């Protein structure tokens, strides 16, 4: 093998398993996916050339990412909650290199696997009808209500400026109110989950929720036994007038495993 064709191992995840086994030709580009065990843990890999998966073809890229996710789902079904890797991580070397890495980081990986055992990641996004909350803010504040009534009687130009003023005040209150609500919901959710994080960048939301204001986005690590209770709590929020909740999962715990230091 020349310099440009170094051997590599594409890694999908680390699972709890002490024995060698195979998942079949289910990997990216129908690669044969198998386990490289070390003690009580194992890496799920396929053999490849140590070069990054790069393409300009968007469809191809999507296909690869889906195949990557499929292997993670399959391994989760078979071995329980695992440490997932993002798309595109390749070890330079052979099975021994992977095994060496597992050995080096054994305690950390074992600890992380223990932490996520019997748990999954869920995303919770809470949306509200902005206009409805704004209306509530105005009608519950005598000063704002008075200003709104006065604006109706003002001449056009003056009304425009005061309308802006009202809008700014309402917006300020809207931010306070949605922050308060997000905090309140966060406290309820926290009681039912093992760990919660704020999802900073929500990359995609379904059309159904477009036009609504997102007031909170949480990533939650939830024990299997608590999923129904969390679902019920969120149902309750979803049923409140003007609110809508998107609850999705179970996902592999991408947001809750720590691979820093490996």
């Amino acid at each position, binding site marked *: 093998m020349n310099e440009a064709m170094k051997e590599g191992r594409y890694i999908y995840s680390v699972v709890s398993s002490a024995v060698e086994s195979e998942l079949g030709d289910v990997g990216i580009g129908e690669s044969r996916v198998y386990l490289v065990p070390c003690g009580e843990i194992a890496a799920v890999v396929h053999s490849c050339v140590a070069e990054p998966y790069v393409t300009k073809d968007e469809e191809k890229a999507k296909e690869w990412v889906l195949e990557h996710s499929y292997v993670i789902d399959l391994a989760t079904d078979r071995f329980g909650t695992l440490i997932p890797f993002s798309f595109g991580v390749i070890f330079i070397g052979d099975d021994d290199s992977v095994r060496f890495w597992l050995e080096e980081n054994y305690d950390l990986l074992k600890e992380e696997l223990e932490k996520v055992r019997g748990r999954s990641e869920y995303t919770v996004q809470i949306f509200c009808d902005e206009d409805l909350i704004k209306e509530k803010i105005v009608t519950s504040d005598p000063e704002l209500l008075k200003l709104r009534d006065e604006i109706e009687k003002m*001449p*056009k*130009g*003056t*009304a*425009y*400026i005061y309308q*802006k*003023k009202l809008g*700014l005040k309402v917006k300020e209150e809207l931010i306070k109110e949605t922050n308060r609500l997000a905090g309140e919901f966060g406290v309820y959710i926290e009681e039912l989950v093992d760990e919660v994080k704020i999802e900073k960048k929500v990359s995609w939301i379904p059309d159904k929720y477009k036009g609504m204001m997102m007031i909170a986005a949480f990533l939650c690590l939830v024990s299997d036994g608590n999923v129904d209770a969390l679902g019920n709590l969120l149902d309750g929020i979803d049923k409140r007038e003007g609110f809508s909740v998107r609850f999705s999962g179970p996902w592999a715990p991408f947001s809750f495993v720590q691979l820093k230091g490996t």
Partner: protein
Amino acid sequence: MDEKNLKQGLLGLVVALVEVIQDLVERQAIRRIEGGSLDEDEIERLGKALIDLDEAIEKIKEDNDLEDVVNSVMGSLDDVAEDLLNKFLNPESWAEEVDEK
């Protein structure tokens, strides 16, 4: 990107910046009124001028199909401002980010 896209993107950026300025001017007008330095006529004239500005911007957006471009520029500006504010308010996260790099 073809020439039409480039023009639309550039015009969208300009209009978005004008909207930012419009917002500042409107806030300043409110402050002046609250400060009591304008009489009723002046307020009305100022308000009408702001309406004209608003209508002109809306027309440019409509004529050039810029609504989406401007929204996307505004969204990006919001993200930049949000990031910056977070870093001012929470310097520890900044330090962590630097450490990670």
